[in-house]
């Protein structure tokens, strides 16, 4: 990931509404972020490969190919943070978007501060350098952004890595969904706890040997989650 201080961060805006895309571009440039644009879902993956952005802003409704499919394609080859732009806050749409691999979502209409805060939160590398941690039979290398089981490297998106690291850095603590939203997503107010639920499921699918019977990310009924004890 590019350090936003050294080089301008690059954000790919995938939206068919050119006025909105341009306006987002204006807002991002004033914040020192370099935007690039794509107005067609079917061309999004090609432009993504070409540009290699640090983050993708993805509209859910697109001509050519809808945002969910684009999200799945990008996620299949990259862990680049994806923030969905959606006009719908109804459960089904949001959950579908998150399950397809988006890290976060913003409901239209949003204001510039909200947009920038969400982008910054996803571009910010995890601040704590906790060295090497053990969760269950996993080894989490916070400096190298790597998770290993035995000799095998497990590929996680930056968000999933942050989520695991947050839990692993305080193994004795039970994290509520609200705490995780603040620490991992950077929300400082009440936000959608479905974000946490969906991403815990995605993380478990990657790190657990049996996702039905988790040993790495444990559920604490009625409270939240905590890291499993080191094996």
């Amino acid at each position: 990931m590019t350090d936003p201080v050294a080089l301008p961060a690059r954000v790919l805006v995938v939206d068919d509404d050119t006025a909105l895309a341009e306006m987002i571009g204006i807002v991002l440039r004033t914040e020192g972020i370099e935007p690039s644009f794509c107005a067609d879902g079917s061309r999004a993956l090609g432009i993504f490969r070409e540009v290699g952005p640090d983050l993708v802003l993805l509209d859910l409704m697109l001509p050519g190919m809808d945002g969910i499919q684009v999200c799945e394609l990008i996620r299949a080859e990259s862990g680049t943070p994806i923030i969905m732009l959606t006009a719908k806050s109804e459960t089904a749409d949001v959950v579908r978007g998150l399950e397809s691999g988006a890290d976060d979502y913003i409901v239209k209409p949003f204001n510039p501060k909200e947009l920038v805060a969400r982008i910054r939160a996803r571009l910010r590398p995890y601040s704590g350098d906790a060295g090497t941690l053990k969760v269950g039979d996993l080894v989490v290398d916070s400096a190298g952004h790597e998770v290993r089981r035995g000799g095998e490297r497990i590929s996680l998106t930056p968000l999933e890595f942050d989520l695991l690291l947050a839990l692993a850095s305080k193994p004795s603590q039970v994290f509520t969904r609200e705490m995780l939203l603040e620490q991992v997503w950077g929300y400082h107010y009440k936000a959608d706890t479905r974000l946490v639920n969906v991403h815990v499921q995605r993380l478990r699918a990657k790190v657990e040997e049996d996702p039905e019977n988790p040993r790495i990310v444990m559920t604490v009924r009625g409270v939240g989650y905590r890291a499993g004890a080191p094996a």
Partner: protein
Amino acid sequence: MTIPPSSAGLSRIPLGIRVSALARLPRTIWAGIVGAFRRSLEVRIVAITVALSAIALLATGTYMSYTIGNGLFQARVDQVTEESGRATDAAQSLFDSTTAADDSALSVLQLQVLSQVKGIATSSAGVALQRAPGSDVGPLTLIDVSQGGTADLITDQLQAETSSGPDDQYFQSVSIPATGSPHPGLIVGSTVTVPGAGEYELYLLYDLADVQQSLTFVQNTMLIGGLALILLIAGVTWIVVQSVIAPIRVAAETSRKLAAGQLEVRIPERGEDVIATLARSFNGMADSLQRQIVQLAGLSRVQQRFVSDVSHELRTPLTTIRLAGDVLYDNRSDFDPTSARTAELLHTQVERFESLLSDLLEISRYDAQAADIEVAPVNLVHLAQEAITTVETLADRKGSVLQLVAPGGHFEAEMDARRIRRIVRNLLGNAIEHGEGKPIIVTIDSNATAVALAVRDHGIGMSRADAERVFDRFWRADPSRQRTTGGTGLGLAISLEDASLHGGWLNVWSAEGRGSCFRLTLPRSAGVPIESSPLALPPDDAPHRVEDAR
């Protein structure tokens, strides 16, 4: 010939329902029977049919039993009187032909007479020969003889009639003592003249046990036949009622399914009778109902689709406007005063437009019944505290002090936190706006079924008529009233929908010059109806005029 009224042993009633026995059944069984009678048409019809047939059979049976009994008795009486008449004649002729001159010879004759009598009256059970009281005493005397206990059964009345009556024979019913129950019997009395000894009375005793036995047999046969007939009637009625009721039952079951939402169910149509007509009309009704529901569901889908489309189509340009307005607003210090003020106005009005749009979408979601509730355990006191914190700046600006009083409600109840938070914020916002800087008290309490929150301000209040319209969409108490918080006019309408979605209540009390009190009551557990609200409305500190709306 006199037939005395007291015909012993012939007056039994063959059939009868011992109703009192039913009353002695244990209560539960009795209640069960009453319940079945009330619930089941078949049971009722069969019971009524059986009861009426039983009454008819009882009357017929009683009449038949009486007639047969009488006939049997009369036949026996005729036989008995004829037999004893012959016996008396034989005895008289034997006595008449006597030449006995002393008592001992007469005794021998007496024995002959008695044996003769018994020979003639073969069916008699006993015989007695005794001197008639008051007859002339002759030179000779006969000893009174009684066989088979006959003399003990002769009544004074019979004796008086026999000795002094004009007829040859008299008879009377008697009860013959026997092991077990006494047998019905008949005594026939007649007089014989014994030459030289005077008037004697000859009594012959007949046992009618055989007649009684025949009668009992007939009665038993009738009883068994009657019971069998009643059972048969009950069975036939049951079958007939079933055949009529079965289609009705199918219709009832089908309407129940239809009401439960299985719109495709129909009643099979068979034949041309009234049941088939019922089935056809019912199916016609179901068809039309299904058509309308499908049509309405289609409309509802169109409506929801429209809401969704508006949501997307309107929100995208609004986002652009919002971003543009905010960029201008952030740079307003670089503008000349006119442009700067324009940027400010644009900024605030876009915000207002945005909240109006989101409220409109929310209300259309309710209208399309597309609103879904996501319940989670929520502590209403904590929620209220948070909501108070978010509006404190606004309250400070207006000079109102917010105070939370929570004697109860310190537990987690199942509710949709987002919606409840929206209600509480809305009530607080209204209270601050109309509170005229006076204290605002938020009270939370609970009881067995509900938890309630009341927001009480001491501001300008509303008239009764206004309070009744306060939940109407886009309604404002006073159109000329200055607005500072820029509400959309949909806030309370949405709050009311939110409360109803939880199965809760939202009530208002208000009085001009005395302030208002909005009370939200929510069920303690989802799905359990509220019995009463833990908080009083009008509030305890309010004057006694009740202005309760909704």
